[in-house]
């Protein structure tokens, strides 16, 4: 923590971190300074002029959003002078505003409406004018209606800071406007439809396209949860009305770099009701899948698993919850008594890489990307890409990219070490050591033969200068890369699935065949949980697929068990940074479906055993198993290289295909063609 300073705001004494601006300091004193263009965590730009406050001893009012606290400062936020300016500014804004609050979707959460109320401005005292701009409604995600825009530039700045950089100002005077390049529709402007701009807009100029006439925010029930679509495991706030999800936004706290979710997380929820949704168990009868009862389905599964006599296999995705994983492990190991239970984690990671490390991305001042290549556009760990870019562009952090290819994120890097990753990591470590930084003895001797390049020496300067570097490694490189954390700070491995760490910690660690082996070898029974990157029926006598949606694999199964989808059951996960996150049930199970854990318990029951549902205590116990960082040889784990883009798309296939996200994929193809 930095130094603290004391100041007085509207007569209240506050003690805050040095470096805070006056809006934050005032908030700490319980005083709200009106603002439209300020965004926590980003530099104040001074566009709206509402935050003007008076500082004792100063001549003119200053903008609170861009004025740092000083020890002994005496600030007045509500003098007649600044209140008059605020009223004047609001009056001017309202002179260009539609003022249709009675039908506006944003009513209740619109900042302008709030201030008009606070300052008692019913109508502008100036003649009201219209811009007469058309609305951009050419996509199913975001409706842009510049008629409402107050030109706070928040959308422009979030989009720029996260690296997508789709929006910009154009025009001068009252004709100034937020536009895309050449004023094209969003889908032709490199927009990823992450919707960050929608979250940022204080008025009704940017809105989720499907929200109008779907209720106002005060009618929504809001629950914080987690998106399970990829390894970023972003926090989301799910708004629902009458049991239907109506909106998803980022749940990260205001100002956190992690305040970002991608199009899948934000807009994919319409897949909950897609045609592919499974609502009844199915069973193959005479070569054809037919609806059946849960009882019948469970009995069939139980019978076949018993018959497999320890030679059954269980494979699951790693976006099931901890509680599901615990139950699955018990079912497999204790009831079915097989050693073959695994998750798709082993397609891209070794178990050990997912057991340790933690980091705080908001504090990091250097990111070292070892082999990981997050990419918003390809939707590979898009949130991580956005977080890093934001920390670099707004937070002054640096980025060092180590990669044998040319990942897109390298464009934000201060230094790039291009080449075989292990060799590059060795060079970097050796260069750091050569600059006189202490390292464990084994490491020093293991690197004795390494002669760092000039590029590595320059990159090492970044590492040496950083106070809190965070190494983010591809799992296959984790052990080697984590050696850097023995020199300084933290290293984590970044898997592709939301609960990869969780399922490993919960013990979904095969003692027999691993994922690939189970799919490629013959088995008596195979039980597939979730959407796995497999399209063709493996060589098995009996195939169970348990998922929320129909998949290609499920159509070839002998029994299909309909499970709840994300947002339909409670539980926890462990994200790549080692944080336990609560996944909350927001709308209840879709009719006819059951949670994975419940299904496992019922299968066990049908087999005559009892599997207790995973409790919080069990999860906690499992989480205790942590490995300590120790030196490992600079080696790559073999055969773990998968194409992130294809992998993530494969595990989300039924979501994407059952959603307007399909439109996005099609339009991207169009732009590429």
């Amino acid at each position: 923590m930095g130094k603290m300073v004391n100041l007085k705001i509207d007569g209240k004494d506050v003690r805050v971190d040095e470096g805070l601006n006056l809006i934050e300091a005032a908030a700490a004193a319980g005083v709200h300074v009106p603002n439209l263009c300020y965004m926590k965590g980003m530099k104040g730009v001074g566009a709206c002029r509402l935050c003007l406050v008076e500082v004792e001893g100063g001549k003119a009012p200053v903008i609170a959003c861009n004025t740092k606290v000083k020890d002994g400062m005496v600030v007045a936020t509500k003098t007649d002078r600044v209140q008059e300016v605020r009223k004047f500014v609001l009056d001017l804004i309202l002179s260009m505003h539609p003022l249709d609050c009675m039908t506006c979707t944003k009513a209740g959460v619109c900042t302008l409406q709030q201030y008009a109320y606070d300052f008692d401005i019913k109508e502008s005292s100036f003649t009201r004018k219209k811009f007469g701009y058309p609305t951009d409604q050419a996509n199913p995600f975001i409706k842009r209606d510049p008629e409402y825009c107050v030109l706070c530039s928040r959308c422009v700045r979030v989009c720029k800071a996260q690296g997508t950089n789709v929006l910009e100002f154009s025009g001068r005077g009252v004709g100034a406007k937020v536009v895309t390049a050449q004023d094209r529709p969003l889908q032709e402007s490199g927009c990823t439809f992450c919707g960050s701009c929608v979250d940022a807009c204080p008025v009704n100029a940017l809105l989720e396209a499907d929200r109008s006439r779907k209720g106002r925010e005060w009618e929504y029930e809001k629950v914080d949860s987690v998106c399970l679509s990829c390894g970023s495991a972003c926090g989301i706030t799910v708004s629902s009305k009458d049991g239907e999800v109506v909106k998803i936004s980022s749940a990260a706290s205001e100002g956190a770099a992690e305040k970002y979710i991608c199009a899948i997380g934000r807009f994919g929820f319409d897949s909950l009701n897609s045609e592919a949704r499974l609502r009844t168990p199915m069973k193959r009868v005479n070569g054809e899948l037919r609806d059946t009862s849960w009882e019948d389905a469970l009995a069939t599964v139980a019978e076949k698993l018993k018959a497999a006599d320890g030679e059954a296999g269980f494979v699951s995705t790693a976006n099931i919850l901890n509680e599901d994983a615990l139950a699955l492990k018990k079912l497999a190991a204790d009831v079915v008594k097989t050693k073959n239970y695994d998750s798709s984690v082993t397609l891209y990671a070794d178990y050990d890489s997912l057991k340790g490390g933690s980091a705080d991305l908001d504090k990091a001042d250097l990111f070292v990307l070892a082999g990981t290549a997050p990419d918003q556009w390809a939707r590979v760990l898009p949130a991580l890409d956005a977080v890093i870019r934001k920390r670099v562009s707004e937070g002054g952090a640096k980025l060092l990219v180590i990669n044998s290819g040319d990942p897109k994120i390298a464009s934000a890097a201060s230094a790039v070490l291009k080449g075989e990753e292990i060799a590059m990591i060795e060079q970097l470590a050796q260069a750091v050591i050569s600059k006189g930084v202490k390292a464990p003895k084994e490491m020093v001797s293991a690197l004795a033969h390494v002669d760092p390049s000039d590029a590595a020496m320059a990159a090492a300067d970044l590492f040496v200068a950083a106070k809190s570097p965070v190494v983010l490694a591809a799992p296959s490189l984790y052990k080697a890369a984590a050696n850097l954390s023995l020199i300084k700070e933290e290293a984590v491995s970044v898997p592709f699935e939301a609960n990869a760490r969780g399922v490993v910690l919960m013990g979904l660690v095969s003692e027999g065949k691993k994922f690939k082996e189970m799919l490629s070898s013959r088995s008596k029974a195979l039980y597939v949980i979730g959407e796995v990157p497999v399209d063709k029926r493996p060589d098995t006598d009996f195939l169970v697929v348990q998922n929320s949606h129909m998949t290609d694999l499920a159509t070839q199964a002998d029994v299909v068990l309909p499970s709840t989808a994300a947002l339909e059951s409670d539980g926890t996960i462990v994200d790549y940074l080692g944080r336990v996150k609560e996944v909350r049930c927001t709308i209840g199970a879709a009719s006819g479906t059951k949670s994975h854990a419940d299904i496992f318990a019922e299968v066990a029951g049908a087999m005559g055993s009892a599997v207790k549902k995973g409790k919080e205590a069990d999860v906690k116990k499992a989480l205790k198993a942590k490995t300590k960082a120790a030196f490992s040889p600079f080696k790559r784990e073999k055969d773990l290289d998968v194409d992130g883009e294809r992998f993530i798309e494969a595990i989300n296939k039924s979501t994407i295909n059952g959603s307007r996200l399909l439109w996005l994929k099609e339009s991207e193809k169009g732009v590429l063609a």
Partner: protein
Amino acid sequence: MKDNTVVRVCMGPAGIAAGGKAVLEAFRETLADRNIDAEVKEHCSSHQVGCLGLCARDVLVEIGRNGSKTSYQYVKPDMVGRIVAEHIVGGTPVKEWLVDETFDTFYRKQVKIVLADCGRVDPEDIDSYIAAGGYEPTREVLMTWIPDDVIEEIRMSGIRGRGGAGFPTGLKWELARRSKGDVKYVICNADEGDPGAFMDRAVIEGNPHSVIEGMLIGAFAIGANKGYVYIRAEYPLAVERLKLAIKQAYERRFLGRAIFNTQFSFDIEIRLGAGAFVCGEETALIASIEGERGMPRSKPPFPVNRGLWQRPTVINNVETLANVPYIIRKGWAWYASYGTEKSKGTKVFALTGKIRNQGLIEVPMGITLGEIIHEIGGGIEGNRALKAVQTGGPSGGCIPAGMLDLNVDYESLAKAGSIVGSGGMIVLDEDNCMVNMAKYFIQFTQAESCGKCVPCRVGTKRLLEILTRITEGQGKEGDIERLERLSRGVKTASLCGLGQTAPNPVLSNLRYFREEFETHIRDKKCPAKVCKKLLRYSILEEYCKGCGACMKACPADAISGDKKKPHRINPDRCIRCGACFEACKFKSVARD
């Protein structure tokens, strides 16, 4: 006949435009015809730069005989015969064509520092500049001074920024020097966006090396090794000259590494501005160099602390920088001997409007407005009366005719409600409408507002709407108060200098010409007869010959009348275009 007679014909850009070439030829032919052995020379012809003399009276011809010089103004080729016959042959100048007495005070009242070498040195030839003492100040500073000496010298000279804000240059440099950072920048602001201003263009076209030298010395003082000149692309000749000058300076190793074999190195890059007025504002200019849209940024941090790419940056105006080598050459005390206590040195103004001698002038600070108007400007054109002088362009205001004793310096002009600004000076006479003038400037600022902050973006639009309706006869009771409230609000709440000063023309015109606004609003009349929609046209029956010219000209069919009988205008149909007024040969159309 042989008594070293020299005829000099002005062949500067203005001279050529006024037909200098034909005059020159006429002299050559006439003298040859008469077998007179006199030299005919081109004056100001070097390098297409004006001598910045009285170009308004071109073609100027100077005749030197036996050491004495006599000047003629507005010379046309057909006047040459008589001049040769009476003056060169006869020895008696043609009195009525001679320049008047202000021709003398025009030069005497001016003090040329920045403009001194314009027209004298060849801007395309570095040797010409060196021969005039150029790069000597840089050499001396680099080899024998320490940076603090330079800062002290500039501080003592009292020079203040000529870009508009008048910030003390020495202090700016000192702040940048003290600001921590190993990389610093010097930027020369040559964006010059004030309508009607062309001081900076003239300096760069006429003496680009003086600007380069100013940048070099400034860079040395603050510890910068890289400089940018941000110049508007609409100045192609200035850009060309500057490019050439920089190239030549590199060739002579006045730029680049180890300048004068010292440790000091300095590079200059040119950045072209797209002609947005707001890009002249320093933070917007910086954003523009950084590749962003030219929009001002909130200060602090000031550029001296965090400017270009977040590094300490000094940004100075062209004229400010061009003064620097001369201050170094002749010492701060010499420079400070010009001007007033708080405004030192000279200022270049672009004198335009209803004044006889239009063009660039350079005057010592503190000179009175009257001296500028009458002794340098030669008074008002035609036989109209002076109404006011507008200074500072869209950020400035008007000084009414009654205040000609006002000293032209930062403090006095500010007190009178205007500013020195970058040097625009527009002279207005009775035919200028002050409401329309205010509207013109607000129209400009509204069109140039970057749109970032609310008060400027929307406030100037609302100001413009009110001013427009006043000039169109739709003014309402309370509009003056509305203008005042809006102006105050826009001034206090705007983010950058553009918005903070945009209402100045309105406020200053209201201050001195309030009744003119009232007349527009209450009586729906424009005393200067400028606001078209307020004019009433009628036909003076006693003078009307019934020729029908007005009727033909009227696009609205508002005029009727029989041939040879007085015509009449139907006021309900009249669209106040003024076509009849122009068409009537007998001055029978009245306008009020």
